[in-house]
């Protein structure tokens, strides 16, 4: 039996394993429960929830691309009240660790959502999704604007006080990711989720129009993994004390290890679960074995290991 410490922490939240669902890729979590006990993974990051019921974008919402896919869901969801009444109690009952992801159209909406979460028991952390690409107005992608990013996180932090860890989910579609990351950390984020999908488009050559109903969509899957590894590496170099949940095309334990070495304290699995409902459990088991094989005594030792100085320096 190995004694390798596989746990990870984000702010004051402790997780026995560093493997999570990616927001928007596990719906409410209930759908995956047939395939493995939800408490067996590090935690469930729920689909980003907004204040009100939201129908989402028109179909087609999906296009498979080489080693990836575009999605254009547009934050379809039940709204925070129904979510708190139905979905969170279910996850808590399953003894899953829960990170609730929130999304808003305005800075005030994020604060309103945070207020509703403040008194809810059983939540380990809040993910503040300021980077969903599937919104009508690109100006509303807060994570593309350093000042707007800061103001959203500041509002959430003031509302929930100092208790619940805040994880800011950022977009790779920016010129200077590190400065945006620094801004949200200064405003009170305890951790970062990197990366959201990359904005993309597919044009159907038969209809000769954009394939997706929403025209543009978010690219995910192994096609974006090098972008995610780069983003995690750059941000970890600048902010080595800030825990990062790395995501973007992780489909194997080896992929997860790459993200940990780049500087992630945990990983989220999204598109891989679409292709394989038990992907998270396979990745979790493979990652653990790879860390043991490389002689690490803990996950924490491996975080950012790719940044160590070369021998002789």
């Amino acid at each position: 039996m190995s004694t390798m410490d596989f746990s990870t922490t984000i702010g004051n939240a402790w997780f026995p394993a560093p493997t999570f669902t990616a927001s928007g890729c596990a719906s409410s979590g209930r759908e995956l429960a047939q395939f493995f006990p939800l408490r067996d993974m590090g935690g469930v990051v729920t689909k980003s929830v907004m204040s009100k019921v939201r129908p989402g974008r028109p179909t087609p919402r999906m296009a498979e691309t080489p080693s990836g896919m575009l999605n254009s869901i547009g934050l379809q969801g039940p709204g925070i009240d129904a979510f708190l009444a139905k979905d969170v109690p279910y996850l808590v009952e399953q003894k899953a660790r829960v990170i609730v992801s929130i999304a808003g159209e305005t800075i005030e909406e994020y604060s309103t959502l945070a207020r509703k979460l403040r008194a809810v028991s059983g939540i380990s952390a809040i993910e503040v999704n300021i980077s969903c690409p599937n919104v009508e107005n690109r100006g509303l992608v807060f994570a593309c604007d350093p000042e707007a990013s800061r103001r959203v996180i500041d509002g959430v932090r003031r509302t929930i006080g100092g208790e619940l860890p805040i994880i800011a989910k950022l977009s790779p579609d920016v010129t200077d990711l590190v400065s945006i990351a620094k801004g949200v950390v200064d405003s009170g984020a305890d951790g970062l989720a990197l990366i959201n999908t990359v904005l993309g488009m597919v044009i159907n050559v038969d209809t000769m129009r954009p394939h997706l109903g929403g025209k543009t969509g978010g690219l995910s899957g192994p096609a974006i993994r090098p972008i995610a590894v780069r983003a995690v590496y750059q941000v970890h170099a600048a902010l080595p004390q800030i825990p990062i949940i790395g995501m973007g095309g992780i489909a194997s334990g080896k992929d997860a290890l790459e993200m940990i070495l780049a500087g992630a304290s945990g990983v989220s699995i999204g598109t891989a679960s679409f292709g394989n409902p038990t992907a998270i459990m396979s990745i979790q088991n493979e990652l653990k074995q790879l860390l043991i094989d490389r002689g690490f005594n803990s996950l924490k030792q491996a975080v950012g290991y790719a940044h160590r100085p070369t021998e002789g320096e």
Partner: protein
Amino acid sequence: MTLINKNAKQLHAPIVSNKRVGQYHQIIINIGEVAATCKPGNFVAISVGGDSSRMVLRRAFAISRVSTSSAVGGTMELIVAPHGQGSKWLCQQGEGVVLDLVAPLGTAFGIPTEPVSVLLVGGGYGSAPLFGLAELLNARGCRVDMLLGASTGSKIYAPMEGKRSVNSMRIYTEDGSMGTAGRVTDPIPEIVRDLNVAVIYSCGPMPMLAAITKISNELDVVHQCAVEESMACGIGICMTCVLPVENEDGTISNLRSCIDGPVMDGSKVQWDRVGEQL
């Protein structure tokens, strides 16, 4: 709250046989005990392309029939048209190849509690799951009549043994190359009236399902249809396969065709709003 994906199992299942039937492939897969939980209307999600594939998403296929008593144990039959990259790959896989699949998924056709008269309407290879359904309805004492339609004769899927469970089978092709020239929906009103049909079951392309819904609404007959929307996951987590459906309270929601379907009440689906912003 009912469980989602209640009977679904992920398994590695070998192909028993793969035969070309006209423009389609008939693929039989050994799924063991899982066959006992598959019902007409359910579908299977299959991983395609092998380990190094650039195709990251599963492909969904209607389960056309299951057998719990074949020589190799429980099997499922799929009728696959080699249209896209994933289905082409599947059609190329021979006997003995082990597939990674998840089944059964989705809703099943509801079976009447009384032995009523029913009409089954299939478009193209969408007719495949109707034959297993016909056997079940026939065994329950229903009068089963079937209409098959396609643009042209080579796209009709009508196995010889399929006729055993139906009172009549009529074929319609738009180009007149097989059966009667015309649309499969043309004779529906007359058949419904003449045979006092209580339920229409349908499976095929969306315009056909929409046209049948118009007729079933006018004639006040139940219409259970199996929809086909493109899916990324098949298990309810990706939210891509949604259709606008009327709720109990009259509002309209985007429902997932993988877990709230594929079998839906045709009268509730808002066919004219598919692809619109709700």
